[in-house]
């Protein structure tokens, strides 16, 4: 009995260390995430902006900022831009990544140099998006190398940065290049994790490659596909560096490439704290809903 008591006391004293080790993480989390998050929500209920040099507010106005940003601003347009550019980049990204992952992991094909290809296609993911965008700006400008090559090949030069499709296309292309290697590696890891015997069983049952893919491979990698799609959507909502640098913050012709975070950034710079707050909360709700799906996806596997 005495021994038992001592033991339980001992395990309590170990747990004490566990809480102490958690402390730095949570103190920093409270200071640099939780307080900013709470105050962002708080600011969204106040009228607070600069009119010329005079400060208006802060004055509590309830949900008026939400009404303004949802009904009276260009928010729907920027949400549409963001969605369109994200889709333009993501569809080729997921399709090409899926095909590459199947090729790389196929024993029947037994491709050579797969490590080299994987290394090269993943590389852009580590590049500074701002620098990558500046590079594309220089390469695709009216007097840049790409137009030089077009002229040398006998084509008309094309003003990529003065056209709506040019801007959106370049941003989508950059997003694709930055991310398809990452997606390939994730999907490949899932494909490699499929038990060979399941595939063999399907083949013995007479399933061809396409049927095997639809009925065996695809259901097996469903969790990672959900993970890729949702994290990419969250990444899409965050889209900023690439379009900001490419269009110098202006969003291209007629703001056709202005994204949600660029719009938020503009409000932050012009000290429109009320509207910035409402916009932030809307984005917070959207990303939280998406996060919930990832969370369920990650914990399901346990």
């Amino acid at each position, binding site marked *: 009995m005495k021994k038992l008591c001592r033991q339980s006391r001992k395990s309590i004293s170990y747990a004490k260390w566990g809480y102490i080790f958690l402390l730095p993480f949570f103190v920093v989390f409270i200071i640099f995430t939780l307080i900013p998050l709470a105050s962002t929500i708080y600011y969204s209920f106040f009228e607070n902006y600069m009119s010329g040099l005079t400060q208006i507010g802060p004055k509590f106005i309830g949900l008026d900022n939400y009404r303004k940003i949802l009904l009276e601003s260009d928010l729907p347009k920027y949400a549409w831009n963001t969605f369109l550019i994200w889709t333009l980049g993501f569809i080729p990204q997921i399709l090409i990544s899926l095909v590459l992952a199947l090729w790389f992991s196929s024993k029947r094909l037994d491709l050579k140099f797969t490590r080299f290809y994987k290394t090269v296609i993943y590389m852009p993911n580590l590049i500074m998006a701002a620098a990558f965008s500046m590079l594309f700006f220089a390469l695709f400008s009216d007097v840049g190398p790409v137009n030089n090559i077009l002229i040398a090949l006998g084509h008309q030069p094309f003003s990529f940065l003065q056209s709506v499709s040019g801007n959106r296309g370049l941003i989508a292309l950059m997003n694709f290049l930055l991310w398809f290697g990452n997606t390939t590696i994730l999907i490949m890891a899932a494909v490699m994790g499929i038990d060979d015997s399941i595939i063999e069983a399907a083949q013995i049952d007479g399933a061809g490659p396409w049927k095997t893919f639809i009925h065996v491979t695809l259901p097996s990698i469903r969790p990672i596909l959900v993970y890729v799609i949702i994290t990419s959507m969250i990444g899409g909502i965050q889209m900023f560096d690439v379009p900001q640098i490419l269009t110098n913050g202006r969003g291209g012709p007629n703001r056709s490439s202005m994204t949600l975070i660029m719009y938020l950034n503009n409000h932050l710079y012009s000290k429109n704290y009320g509207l910035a707050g409402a916009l*932030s909360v809307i984005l917070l709700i959207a990303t939280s809903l998406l996060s919930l799906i990832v969370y369920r996806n990650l914990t399901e596997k346990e």
Partner: protein
Amino acid sequence: MRIEQEIRIRKFNKALIYLVLILLTLICLFPFYLLIVNATRAHSEIQKGFSATFGSFFWTNLKNVLDNKQLPVLRGIVNSFLIAASSALLATYFSALTAFSIHVYDLKLKQFIFSVILLIMMIPNQVYALGFVRWMGTLGLMDSHIPLILPAVSSPVVFYFMLSYMQSNLPLAMIEAARMDGASEFRIFNQMVLPIMKPAIAVQAIFTFVGSWNNYFIPSLIIRTADKKTLPILIAQLRSADYLKFDMGQVYMLIFLAIIPILIIYIFLSKYIVRGVAVGAVKE
């Protein structure tokens, strides 16, 4: 006859696949090839048109961009490096420590704490940038590097990777044995657990370093003074400057300086980095 035909089709398919792979490789490498070529050419040469061969102005461009009075490039490199290196150090050490406490100790709120961390993991910091920037103002931390470094202590993603790694590589019996030998909990972590975690720490340190080195949104809201600016801010500044009047050799050289250090790290450590990408997201 049929088998021969099938083999021929298969060979043709394989050739086609290699062609696609080579094409994708070229698309990935071409922008960097153009970057390196143009970083070695003089402004006047670049203006004249495209060239596939290297120029001889690499050192001139490098010297010009480092001496540029409007852009404190050298300071930018030093600032970016110090911020990224400190972030990597803090993120890996404290994430390992947090993962250790969740993995080893019998905490009452364990499941709750773990759930909270997983839930906040995906929330992007842009959505609370407003509160962050104003709160840093209240704390007197505007125009300081601290708000760019210290938050790394609580890095949910790094924590998640560390925990996955610990679950498969750190047997609890080892901790028990060390306790029997009378080691303190803090010493067990620093002298026994950290060495075991080395591979995970290395990979996560690289990812954190790269993420911080490339970070543009929050630094651009916090930093004002020229001497404190990081490379992405300088690139944005260059973009908003009167572009056509600028020396293009210097423009390409600045992009080169922002990208190349990361590429060099990648060339040497790509094996570990590529392997580290899928850890955590895919459970084996």
